[in-house]
């Protein structure tokens, strides 16, 4: 950020972000009733969508407001901008520390909930959509940065497994916040699962997914806001601490085993890195 052009780009990016933030916040929370449940539209969703609309990679150069230089600068700012938010989460855990520790075993066990992706997504990917090795990378985890590292390490990112994990990573980046906030407010309004359980489930993905998810939960159940934040924050912290081991030592071997059951004829050794000459690698 030391060249003058970068400095101009940085100011322009911040000004655009400020306008987006103010307008999104002024729009406020909107509720949509859908039959048996409620979907909440949150300021953070408007901000994300406004960012997409003004992003030249998505819509071309809309009115030439921003260019590629600004897009490149925005990427590291995501992490920086989420830090005060994460700090706020941490400060809700401290006062509730006794309740969090009492729920410790549940918090640790729900990391196994990662396996829910295998139960739901793997059969659809392999039996319904007829995906091959891509399915292994696509369904073994929720595909955030640690999962990319695991797949890169085991198979390389250029093979079919890499294509699978990258595609799901990108889907998560593109629509993760939308899916999580809609899903959380809807499931919470059904009133069948413990709100603390839903709060823990909010912590399984990236920081911005947790923001969208716990925000929607807290807006649906405002009287439980502090508890929701404490449990979501702790769960997200544990995702970094223990979740990676669940994906590496339980989820990935399980998906490999299920894939061998589904395709016993596919003898390609799991450890062969990035041999992309078979039919799905050439896609």
């Amino acid at each position: 950020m030391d060249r003058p052009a970068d400095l101009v780009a940085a100011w322009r990016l911040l000004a655009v972000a400020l306008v987006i933030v103010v307008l999104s916040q002024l729009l406020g929370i909107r509720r949509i009733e859908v039959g048996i449940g409620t979907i909440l539209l949150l300021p953070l969703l408007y901000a994300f969508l406004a960012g997409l609309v003004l992003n030249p990679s998505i819509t071309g150069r809309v009115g030439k407001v921003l260019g590629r230089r600004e897009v490149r600068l925005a990427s590291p700012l995501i992490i920086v901008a989420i830090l005060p938010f994460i700090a706020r989460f941490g400060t809700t855990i401290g006062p509730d520390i006794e309740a969090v520790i009492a729920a410790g075993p549940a918090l640790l066990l729900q990391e196994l909930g990662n396996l829910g992706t295998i139960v739901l997504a793997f059969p659809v990917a392999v039996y319904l959509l007829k995906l091959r090795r891509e399915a292994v990378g696509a369904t073994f985890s929720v595909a955030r940065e640690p999962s990319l590292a695991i797949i890169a390490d085991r198979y390389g990112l250029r093979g079919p497994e890499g294509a699978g994990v990258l595609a799901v990573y990108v889907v998560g980046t593109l629509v993760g916040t939308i899916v999580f906030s809609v899903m959380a407010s809807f499931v919470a309004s059904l009133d069948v699962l413990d709100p603390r359980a839903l709060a823990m489930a909010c912590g399984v993905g990236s920081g911005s997914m947790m923001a969208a998810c716990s925000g929607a939960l807290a807006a649906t159940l405002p009287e439980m806001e502090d508890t929701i934040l404490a449990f979501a924050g702790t769960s997200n912290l544990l995702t970094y601490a223990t979740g990676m081991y669940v994906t590496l030592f339980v989820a990935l071997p399980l998906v490999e085993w299920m894939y061998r059951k589904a395709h016993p004829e596919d003898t390609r050794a799991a450890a062969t890195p990035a041999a992309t000459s078979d039919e799905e690698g050439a896609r």
Partner: protein
Amino acid sequence: MSATPVDDVEDTQDERLSLPSEMTALLAVLPLGWAAQLIATDLSALRAAAGVLALGLIAVIGILLTRALPFLRLPSVAWVSLVGIVASLPMLPWGEAVVGVVGEIDFLALSVPCLAFAGLAISRREVAIAKTSGWKLLVVGVLVLIGTFIGSALIADVTLPLLE
């Protein structure tokens, strides 16, 4: 994470900032969070500024710890979260004062700047990946998100009553 195949992904996704740049960036995004607070809460401009600055300070300590202890390989969000916990523990002398300053800060409004940058940062590469990987992997991606959420929620819902 220095293996070559990851590099081009990180190039677009996770550009590492130098410490001065990271501090400057943090200072630059705090006013956005402050502006959102003014609209979302009834806090006075001064109270909102104090709360956002206190959270910024927690973030700074977390960033410094991330860089001081790289061998633990914890990401900065984990460190910031831990610092936030320690700062707000009621049994420690500063706990109540910290909660007094940041307790009224609306966390939902605080997430809005981050999501604005997330939308602005989607790169051409990511759009290209989404286009070339086809609709099947997009369907699978959404199912992965739903499956993880429901899986975690179900396990937690079953185990929580056992602890009470």
